[in-house]
């Protein structure tokens, strides 16, 4: 039997069935000229920087710039055009397709309530200039981008992992990052202590914390129906009631029918 082929470049979950004749529709894009404000932004930027592509999608102006211009463009947007807020930035992993990361910056103009998405592509090992001295928000956002994608950022004062532990290996949001842990690692204790041949006897570790085995009387699987530790439960009849029928000293038996339900509390 042949081993199943697995694409190592993208180990993320994929749909198990796609109609081969199906063509994905597209979210409509519009020419920036259709919007007065965006048109002037694009015209103003075009005089200074090279704009590779510009369109409007879902009320956002999307512009593609050269990665070397990122700081200059954002500064220009902030100082000259009023897009003074960077609301979000991060990367998209296109390594499998073109060996590139796509970096996006979400800009906001508070006075006009308009948003621009500035984008650029960088190669895997190419560094991008930090914008954190114009937008301090990028201080955290760039650290997160580095943490999740391994995108290098130049001139950042404190480039360190932010969400993952400092000694973490790999970049979790890359498409090559595995969804499951390492197989050897999951058998590590068994292999080390008992040897590989004990794998069958011991079995894999139960990692589903929600799993309940109703015949298990050793772990806490029978709350409310406790039996002696380790006894065989497949035969034991368990009583559903949790109190003596006549009641015990000081405690009366609670009958469900005698309880009163408060329908409308005093609001």
């Amino acid at each position, binding site marked *: 039997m042949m081993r199943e082929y697995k694409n190592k470049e993208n180990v993320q979950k994929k749909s198990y069935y796609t109609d081969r004749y199906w063509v994905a529709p597209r979210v409509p894009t519009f020419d920036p000229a259709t919007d007065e404000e965006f048109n002037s932004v694009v015209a103003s930027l075009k005089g200074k920087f090279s704009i590779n592509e510009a369109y409007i999608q879902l*009320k956002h102006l999307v512009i593609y710039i050269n990665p070397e211009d990122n700081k200059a463009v954002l500064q220009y947007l902030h100082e000259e055009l009023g897009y003074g807020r960077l609301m979000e930035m991060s990367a998209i*992993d296109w390594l499998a397709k073109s060996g590139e990361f796509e970096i996006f910056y979400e800009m*906001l103009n508070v006075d006009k*309530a308009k948003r621009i998405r500035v984008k650029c592509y960088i190669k895997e090992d190419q560094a991008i200039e930090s914008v954190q001295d114009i937008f301090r928000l990028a201080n955290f956002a760039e650290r997160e981008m580095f943490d999740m994608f391994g995108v290098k950022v130049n001139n950042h004062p404190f480039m360190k992992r932010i969400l993952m532990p400092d000694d973490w290996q790999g970049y979790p949001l890359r498409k090559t990052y595995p969804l499951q842990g390492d197989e050897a690692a999951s058998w590590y204790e068994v292999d080390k202590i008992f040897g590989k041949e004990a794998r069958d006897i011991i079995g894999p570790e139960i990692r589903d914390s929600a799993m309940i085995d109703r015949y298990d009387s050793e772990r806490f699987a029978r709350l409310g129906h406790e039996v002696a530790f380790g006894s065989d439960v497949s035969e034991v009849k368990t009583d559903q009631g949790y109190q003596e029928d006549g009641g015990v000293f000081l405690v009366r038996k609670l009958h469900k029918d005698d309880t009163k339900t408060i329908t409308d509390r005093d*609001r």
Partner: protein
Amino acid sequence: MQHTNRLEPFFENLEFERDDNHMIINFGPQHPSSHGQLRLIMELDGEEVVKAVPDIGYLHRGMEKMGENMIYNEFLPTTDRMDYIASSSNNYAFALSVEKLLDIEVPRRAQVIRTIMLELNRLASHLFWLATHALDVGAMSVFLYCFREREYILDLIEDYCGARLTHSAIRIGGVPLDIPDGWMGSLLKLMKKLPTDIADYEGLLDQNRIWKMRLEDVGVVSKEMARSWGTSGIMLRGSGIQYDIRKEEPYELYDELDFDIPVSETGDSYGRYKLYMEEMRQSIRIIEQLVPMYDETDRALMADAPQYISAPKEQIMTQNYSLMQHFVLVTQGMRPPVGEAYVPTESPKGELAFYLNSQGEPYPYRMKIRAPSFFHTGILQDLLPGHYLADVVTIIGTTNIVFGEVDR
């Protein structure tokens, strides 16, 4: 330097006491007023903070990664676990982003219910904020009063969707349930009661000398700092910038509703506290306008878009094609068009948005969650230096960060 095969503690090997009377202290991650798992490493000169470094990630669950490996409907309950104080607002931000990608129209009744839910969540969140913040600062009794009123709101939400904390009551394309009988009555009853409660809290706090001393001129966010850090929500309006996404980039029914956006010019914690109180009043006003709107709507609750949204239950049970479509949508998931969406919403904490990059597959190619609390944690680096150690708790309190959202 990192060594690949060795655990190197990064902060523990610092000298804790030095000749220049500077001291490095560690705040959290298990500190009652760190509002979750915030670890702050602070350098103190005497009692004054010289440098503060927030260390986050203790609640990191990789939600973006999870989102990229789940079909859209499957991911929705996970968003509950972000800002767990107001989980419907997360559901909504996600659902709205997907709806914009799909370009579908949500029925009007669902819109009314969603807006009510959003505002109830805002009320619950602000009450929770006031309760915990007052507790942090030392006003114990306010904590209990606020929790009492929050409980009523949670009861209402429970009556509507069955859950108190993780609602999942807003779905892609609408809402799953209609309002139960008599619910609107008890909602209005509560809305009538709440203003007197808010007046009570203000009676306890507004002119309270200790409260004013601890909040006034503490944690001043200047306009420039607010711009640079991209603050949103009350952190932004506290700095004198009138920007509320509900007003400026209206979504749902907010453009039909009449409400005010309170702004504070002071930029300090006391100003933000006043904003929280005023926003609660505005939420009540919004809900009172929404209730009569509900009666004018017809019965549809989910959008009619068979390609993306399952048909109503009775249709699935009676019509073969609807059943087939439903089966495909549940097992394979909807496939939104190729494109990107970033739809800002005004969550109780600030601007919450989901950046979605769809490549026409049932799984988003990239999902970036723009969580307001994440950046409001970052601002602590610039906000804390210059303040005294005792003010740190106040400042963390007024930023209103929730760690489910910071770490995602």
